[in-house]
């Protein structure tokens, strides 16, 4: 399992802050996202938005990044701090 977190506008639109997702060896961030969309068809549009960012274990990664059980993933909109 990986823990997936959502932040800010994305969290509000999905009405979900955290979700557990089963992963198999060799799977990538893209597979986790596909699994989430399969489980929650209503999330498709939000999760496929071009500007959604992803972090694995607190570091920015792209969709090809491999994931392993125990990883923490996060999806969020472009950042707006400062």
């Amino acid at each position, binding site marked *: 399992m990986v823990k997936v*977190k959502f932040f800010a506008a994305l969290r509000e639109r999905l009405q979900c802050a955290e979700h557990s997702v089963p992963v198999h060896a060799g799977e990538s961030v893209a597979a986790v996202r596909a699994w989430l969309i399969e489980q929650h068809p209503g999330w498709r549009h939000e999760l496929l938005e071009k500007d959604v960012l992803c*972090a694995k274990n607190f*570091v920015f990664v792209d969709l090809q990044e491999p994931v392993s059980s125990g990883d923490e993933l996060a999806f969020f909109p472009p*950042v707006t701090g400062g």
Partner: protein
Amino acid sequence: MKPVIRVQQHDFSVAEEYQRLTQASNCGAVVTFSGLVRELADTELEAMTLEHYPGMTEQVLAGLVEQARQRWQLGDVTLIHRVGRLTLNEQIVFVGVAAPHRKAAFAAAMFIMDYLKTQAPFWKQEHTAEGSYWVAAKDSDQQAAQNWQEDL
């Protein structure tokens, strides 16, 4: 010198942070940047809420400061970002850089702010009389961060 990096709800004191930055005796230049909650031209802003990604935020901020240190000869560096609900005129962010030379102090402070704006996981939600809105990311901030890469 270990940089001071803090993510906090409570306010900070520019006076105290400036004092600390001037302790080291070999830095003739100190640059500070402070960002404040201000009324925008087109909305009646009452307050904002700053959300962040605990755990990742601190790591990204430390990385930004480390990158600045690798580019320029710096003394003490302080980076503070507030989270939670902030009302009009409150302080949001502080970057303080001490350096032997002014050029490095200015460049590092700008670099840290430009990268923070595009890489640190903070999100602003503005509260106005008409409702609450998540702030949209600005292309100009993306551009500012990219300019530093061309600089390499």
